[in-house]
């Protein structure tokens, strides 16, 4: 920020004297930055571990040539970061670059916090699968972010135990249910997997695979389809399995869940490409015993998957150097060296298709050394990711999911009623926020 000392004094005095009434004047200070004559310095809020080392590559390489220096300010991930960005944006002080999950982009864009960088990142488009790129455009001509990592969903199972119980890898969800029942018969104390009501992202991904479109626009109104037919099908499927006791109903990521995976009480996991990292810490004793397969399909012969997780790099409207920031965002997510470093330092699975099979992804993850073609398969699955449709209040939908489905899973009661609650609460919140909602 090119604040002079005198300016700071003046603004302090104004702030003290006028308090909150002086809030409007700040945004002007950054306008003089678009002409990139002098050296540019950018700040970048990200939660990816080791990102500072990746950014060093930029600062010492292309950044030095272009005189663009980037400083990483490490943050905690999650919905709270979105709140923090919006608060900073209200004061005109958002950083130049932010890391944002795909489902957070509509929230940020509807608050006018993200800049349209379509002109600066045009060349990058070809590096990404269409379904991934579409998430950063929100279906418009604008581009609000550059994809960084993705989380295509897959099916993980204990190869040894599947053999022991004579189970075959399910190709459809129907077979998945049969497998769960068959296991229950063979070993009543074991579960195929669990339905976790704590993980909204998992349910959203499963619905996405089934073809759900939770948020769409018609005209200038939002249309919420959380209880559409596709999602209803998914909810009924899992609700049925929980009700008959074919799968467990305990949440994931708890000590008990870790133990269940580690001891073979649960023998499969519907997860995403980042599962090897989680399994390494959750189930260290079962290393080399797992295998990965595509997600079961709703109809035989189809191939489609959802995504769970993934994030992008966006430029804020508060940035005084949007073009420079966009240049960095494009480099970070398309340059081979940068992506290699990201994989090594931050452990991400790149959105860039060319990086999905090179460098760190040439061989399988250590935990899956028994499956040498792990990442080849993963890249193939990633291509089949169904399009997603996020809206401006994903956080509200996610919170009500946890409450409504949490209760339903615990009581083994009707999942579709929980789905209706989720739909109603999400619509009510959109209206409360002042969005037009098409019924």
């Amino acid at each position, binding site marked *: 920020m090119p604040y002079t000392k005198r300016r700071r004094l003046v603004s302090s005095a104004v702030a003290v004297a006028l308090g909150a009434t002086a809030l409007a004047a700040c945004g002007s200070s950054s306008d003089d930055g678009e002409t990139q004559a002098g050296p540019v310095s950018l700040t970048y809020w990200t939660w990816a571990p080791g990102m500072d080392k990746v950014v060093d590559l930029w600062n010492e390489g292309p950044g030095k040539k272009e005189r663009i220096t980037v400083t990483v300010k490490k943050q*905690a991930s*999650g919905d709270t970061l979105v709140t923090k960005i919006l608060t900073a944006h209200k004061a005109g002080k958002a950083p130049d670059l932010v890391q944002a999950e795909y489902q957070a982009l509509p929230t940020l864009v509807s608050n006018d916090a993200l800049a349209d960088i379509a002109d600066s990142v045009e060349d990058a488009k070809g590096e990404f699968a269409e379904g991934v790129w579409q998430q950063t455009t929100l279906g418009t001509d604008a581009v609000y972010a550059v994809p960084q990592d993705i989380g295509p969903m897959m099916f993980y199972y204990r190869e040894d135990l599947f053999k022991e119980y004579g189970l075959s890898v399910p190709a459809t969800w129907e077979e998945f249910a049969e497998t769960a029942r068959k296991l229950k018969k063979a070993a009543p104390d074991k579960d195929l997997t669990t339905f976790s009501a704590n993980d909204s992202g998992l349910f959203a991904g499963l619905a996405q695979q089934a073809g759900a479109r939770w948020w769409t626009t018609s005209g200038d109104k939002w249309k919420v389809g959380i209880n559409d037919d596709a999602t209803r099908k998914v909810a009924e499927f899992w609700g049925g399995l929980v009700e008959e006791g074919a799968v467990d109903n305990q949440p994931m990521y708890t000590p008990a869940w870790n133990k269940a995976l580690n001891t073979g009480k649960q023998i499969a996991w519907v997860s995403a490409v980042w599962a090897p990292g989680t399994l390494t*810490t959750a189930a*260290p004793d079962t290393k080399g015993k797992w295998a990965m397969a595509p997600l079961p399909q709703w109809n035989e012969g189809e191939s489609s998957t959802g995504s769970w997780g993934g994030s992008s790099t966006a430029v804020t409207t508060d940035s005084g150097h949007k073009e420079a920031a966009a240049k960095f965002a494009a480099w970070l997510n398309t340059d081979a060296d940068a992506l290699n470093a990201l994989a090594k330092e931050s452990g991400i699975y790149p959105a860039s298709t060319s990086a999905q099979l090179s460098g760190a992804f040439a061989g399988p993850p250590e935990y899956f050394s028994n499956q040498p073609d792990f990442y080849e398969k993963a890249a193939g699955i990633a291509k089949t990711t169904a399009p997603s449709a996020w809206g401006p209040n994903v956080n509200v939908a996610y919170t009500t999911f946890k409450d409504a489905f949490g209760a339903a899973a615990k009581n083994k009661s009707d999942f579709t009623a929980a789905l209706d609650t989720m739909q109603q609460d999400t619509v009510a919140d959109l209206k409360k926020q002042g969005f037009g909602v098409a019924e």
Partner: protein
Amino acid sequence: MSSLAPHKAGPAAGAARGPARRRRIALVPTLTLLLGALYCLLPVAWVVVASTKSGSELFSTFTFWPGTGLADNLSDLSAYRDGVYWRWMGNSALYAGLGALLSTCVSAFSGYALAVYRFRGRETLFNVLLAGVLMPPVILAIPQYLLLAKADLTDSYLAVLLPQILSPYGVYLARIYAAAAVPADVVEAGRMDGAGEWRIFSRVALPMMAPGLVTVFLFQFVAIWNNFLLPYIMLSDDEKFPITLGLYTLLEQGANTPALYTLVITGAFLAVFPLVALFLVIQRFWSLDLLSGAVKS
């Protein structure tokens, strides 16, 4: 506050010593307090035990059975991002130490003034303060951020220190304590002897208020040490983070990176020490009774 619970259990157990008839009655409160102490101490015990476990032992071995990873956890924590943990610890000490000290000074001045001087609007001022006590500081964090952003002070040490200097509860406590501990006669006597107002405050009233101010200091220290939202909103540079925020970033590393549980637990365990030490050191000031013998009653 949990560290107060065992001390409270002490006197209650002592009170049970007496005639046999009373002892049976005192059994119930003693048991209740012991249960309360257990309730407060169990999570602490969990943290202590869990901090000795290595990553693979954490969720797989018996909860209250110590593991073998304490040394590794400590060195991992110190090595994490070139020892940023100790920087957070230092930041917390600075925010809490300096903040509590300044806050105690402000509370002492204003509490004394409100208790001893009669001036127009005194009660109104005090009532406004009382309203401030009822207002949770959390809801002020965002307005404070917007205000400090105007002054270009966000993401600085001052951004966290300034809002916490005025503590309505501290002023309230100081006023109540000054009204009870500094008799008007003593102030009057000082004036008769020709002491100035500053001298009366610093030499006569301040020592009398000391136990109360120690309480204010401790309250404010703990409040700042545990504060999360204000620094979370104010700071973006993790070199300036206090310990609460730092540990949070270790937990929330993004969906594809497992949380660093062992580091967080070990970090939380170490972060308890300064508070315990502070309580042990400052506790003795509470028993000082400067009042005795100051006035004849």
